[in-house]
């Protein structure tokens, strides 16, 4: 399978089961902000875990996709964590999370335009300078198309990922949710992403929500199993790219028996294997 790997997001509720079934997990992804304020012994424990399995630090609060300069203190904390834990790599989102002193509280899509691209590239230079390496950049799910955008999501993503030299962390469930919610074909959206730069993949689940006003939407909630169309997207991706992929399953609650999570990891392996066979046959 071309050194493809399948792993899981580390969560406190799952840690005992993860350690018990480490043989089924190739790589672990850890939310960086859960550890930036941890004690040195706790961070060293994470370092020990990184000796057992490759660990990837996943940031959720830097807000790099912004015309505001990324907070140097947050970047310093990420740098210190990287230095202590020595992860295989780290990642962040193509999102803004604050502006003008206002904390949004989660990942938001910025206006997708040239000024935003310029600000994001400057923030990535800043991250490289402080942390010492570039993060893999993850596409986000959004329930609203941001105003003042003159590029679509894929063109905007390509304009950042390509020039920055950063690898892409392609979240296939986020891609699926955006395609469903904004009337696009998920496979067409996949093909328009910078696939040659994809090194990592996220899988997760979601559900339909039916607001009082407006149409139903697919919500990326990380509380449900990975839907079949997302495994199909993984197969398509594996059939289209030559580089090895690291796939991470994200689950943030409503946990099933751990065996069901392991079964989803196996489904991901099988989907990639099918895709690789198609790639070889082509």
């Amino acid at each position, binding site marked *: 399978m071309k050194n493809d790997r399948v792993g899981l997001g580390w969560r406190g509720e799952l840690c005992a089961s993860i350690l018990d079934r480490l043989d089924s997990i190739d790589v672990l992804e850890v939310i960086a902000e859960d550890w930036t304020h941890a004690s040195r012994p706790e961070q060293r424990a994470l370092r020990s875990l990184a000796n057992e399995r490759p660990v990837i630090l996943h940031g959720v609060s830097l807000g790099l996709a912004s015309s505001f300069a990324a907070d140097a203190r947050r970047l310093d904390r990420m740098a210190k964590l990287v230095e202590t834990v020595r992860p295989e790599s780290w990642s962040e989102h193509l999102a803004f999370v604050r*502006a003008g002193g206002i904390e*949004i509280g989660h990942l938001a899509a910025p*206006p997708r335009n040239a000024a935003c691209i310029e600000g994001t590239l400057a923030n990535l230079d800043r991250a490289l300078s402080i942390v010492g390496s570039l993060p893999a950049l993850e596409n986000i799910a959004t329930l609203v198309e*941001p*105003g003042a*955008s003159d590029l679509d999501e894929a063109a905007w993503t390509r304009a950042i990922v390509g020039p920055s030299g950063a690898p892409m962390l392609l979240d296939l469930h986020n891609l699926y949710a955006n395609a469903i919610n904004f009337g696009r074909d998920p496979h067409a959206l996949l093909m328009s992403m910078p696939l040659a730069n994809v090194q990592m993949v996220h899988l997760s689940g979601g559900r339909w929500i039916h607001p009082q006003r407006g*149409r139903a939407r697919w919500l990326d909630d990380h509380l449900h199993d990975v839907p079949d169309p997302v495994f199909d997207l993984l197969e398509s991706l594996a059939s289209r790219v030559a580089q090895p992929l690291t796939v991470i399953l994200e689950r943030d609650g409503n946990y099933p028996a751990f065996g069901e999570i392991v079964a989803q990891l196996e489904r991901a392996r099988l989907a990639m294997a099918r895709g690789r066979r198609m790639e070889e046959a082509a």
Partner: protein
Amino acid sequence: MSQQALETFLARLYTEEAFRRAFIADPHGAARRAGLDDAQALQMASMDPDSVELAAQSYARKRESRQRNR
């Protein structure tokens, strides 16, 4: 008007209920009163108000959840 003003405008839309209500009632007028120029106000006014409300509710739940877990 700068890109930072646009991002700040979106952040206010997602976090300030009164600001959002005013925008949904009169998108272009609210954007102009918030200091955006006419072209940018028109661009912001093109946002789907139902989606804005839904996104804001989603962010509010995330903030509440984070507060509970602290």
